């Protein structure tokens, strides 16, 4: 590739420095998989399958955003599954009958509180994050179980059902939501003061502190946003599935980490691009649709998830991501 074309690519995608190549690769492979999957099964590759994939992705993309921020600062949030379940339960129980903005905000506030407590445990008490969030995962799940005594009360609020099952101009609203989340998430992570400081903290805590960033506040903030995203996902899931269950978050626990890691973010923090998470989400959902169509079980699907994670973090490490990115963005370096 010549320096000129590289330069023009870089100029046309100035904000995507770094892992651009890898992300484009993921999107590209996904885009190829969709029509190619017709060869696997004639029912695949149609607009409706693509649409279904994107609709399902809209929820994982949201959890992935929060998890991504926590991973960005070099921690892990294992509590999201039970936050999803708890907010799902509260959504049907409190919002189902009489939707009100105050109740809606109350539910979100509870989630944010859980996130803040996670963050305080990690920063002030210095409990390793996976222990802290695993503990809060158990506690929150216990609260949800205790509150419901095993049976989830209430009904699905109508506005959530409309949101997740409706269409605007023939396009399912969750797809619009997906696009919106991708754009907003990308901007928050890359361009806001908050996002920048998270990168700084994850890249190098000592430097960030020397540069005047309040490291602990940023980490607490990341956990709070993660919980908030899990809560919103819980609500979307209620709308999508038409109700809440105590296990509704379980399917998001590992995938939320998987999409971030497969999306090219460093599990060590400091590196990552939200669009990578978005690409990885759609990619993995496409793969699982494909696997389902092939008649392969849920088990193989999970197995392949695991292999992909190992492939990305282990064998390729950051090399593929950075090399591919470099090919596209700065071959003229030397």
């Amino acid at each position: 590739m010549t320096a000129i074309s590289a330069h023009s690519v870089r100029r046309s995608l100035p904000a995507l420095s770094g892992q651009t190549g890898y992300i484009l690769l993921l999107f590209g492979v996904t885009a190829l998989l969709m029509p190619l999957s017709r060869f696997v099964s004639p029912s695949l590759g149609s607009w409706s399958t693509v649409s279904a994939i994107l609709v399902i992705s809209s929820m994982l993309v949201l959890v992935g955003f929060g998890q991504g921020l926590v991973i960005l600062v070099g921690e892990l949030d294992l509590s999201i599954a039970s936050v999803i379940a708890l907010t799902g339960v509260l959504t049907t129980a409190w919002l189902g009958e009489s939707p009100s903005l105050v109740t809606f905000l109350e539910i979100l506030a509870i989630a944010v509180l859980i996130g803040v407590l996670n963050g305080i445990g990690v920063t002030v008490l210095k409990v390793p994050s996976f222990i802290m969030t695993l503990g809060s995962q158990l506690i929150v799940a216990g609260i949800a179980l205790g509150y419901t005594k095993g049976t989830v009360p209430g009904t699905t609020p109508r506005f959530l059902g409309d949101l997740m099952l409706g269409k605007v101009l023939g396009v399912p609203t969750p797809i619009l939501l997906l696009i919106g989340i991708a754009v907003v998430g990308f901007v928050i992570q890359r361009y806001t003061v908050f996002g920048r400081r998270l990168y700084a903290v994850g890249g190098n805590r000592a430097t960030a502190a020397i540069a005047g960033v309040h490291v602990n506040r940023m980490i607490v903030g990341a956990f709070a946003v993660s919980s908030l995203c899990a809560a919103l996902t819980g609500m979307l899931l209620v709308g999508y599935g038409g109700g809440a269950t105590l296990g509704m978050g379980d399917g998001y626990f590992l995938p939320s980490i998987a999409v971030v890691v497969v999306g090219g973010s460093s599990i060590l923090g400091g590196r990552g691009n939200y669009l990578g998470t978005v690409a990885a989400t759609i990619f993995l959902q496409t793969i699982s649709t494909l696997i389902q169509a092939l008649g392969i079980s849920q088990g193989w699907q999970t197995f392949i998830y695991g292999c992909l994670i190992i492939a990305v973090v282990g064998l390729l490490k950051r090399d593929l991501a950075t090399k591919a990115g470099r090919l596209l963005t700065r071959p003229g370096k030397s």
Partner: protein
Amino acid sequence: MRRALSSGTTLAAIILVAMYIVYMYSSIDVLTTENATDLLNNAAPLVISATGLTLVIVVGGFDLSLGGVVTLANVILATQTGGTTGSAAVGVLLALLAGVVVGALNGFLVAYLNVQSIAATLGTFIMCSGLALVIMPSPGGSVPEFISPGLISSVGPVPVSLLVILACVVAYLAFRRTRMGIHIFAVGLDESAAIQSGIKAAAVKFRVYLAAGLLYAVAGVMLSALTASGDPNGSAVFMVLVFAAVAIGGAKFGGGRGSAIGSILGAGVLAVLQKMLFAVGVSTFYTGIFQGAILIVAVLIGMISLRLGETRPRAVTTDQRALTGRPA
């Protein structure tokens, strides 16, 4: 005194005794043979896994694959249809083999490819979960009789699980007297200093993950004896309990410090806690809350006791950061 208190093992022993006393007062038939056997049966799988995890923690790593291996062993046993002792033996062998293979993969990734242990074992954990679902798509089945009730019954007056727990203790004490048993502490504290002392750090780490994988598989066998059936999704809470046991036992996340004896006592604390909560009539709905709280509190206690014992502050190494929450 200060030094004794700072030892995680002593602290865990004190907590265990205190808890047991409370438990004795909370219920009248605590000291019956059935109750004691029951307690030991519940503790055995925790004890074995905690022993394996402690080795990994001491060497400065972390191992999420434990849940996956335990589940895998469980479903392998639950799908052995023969019902004979022969098929049980095949099942156990297959389960142990699975543990060794997963452990070897972890070890290879962490020791030789320098992958962060959390990331590598997260991957293998997910792989194992998937394989477990492939082997057994939904809970059910039954494990061969040789295992359940075989492994939760008694040989004469002695419960099998007591023998297993004692075997763990003896094996660990013996291991501490081997070369590896000292090398793991060196590597966990400071890998480059260990290398400068002539230790082959990568080989030490690889073997630790391998041994841990095998122990998780044994734990899976013992757990199957307890549940008597298979459950491809059953390991999450179990895994958390093992983490908690190791934390209560005073192992230092980040490496270089810890004792399987402490973790074994920690496992005992959790087993007694479960019994105690049941005895005082706390609804099972809330068990999770107590388990979560005890996990966090245990880590805090462990950290405080470490701080008490530390005579001189030591600089935080990158490795340590990598573990406490990852990231360097």
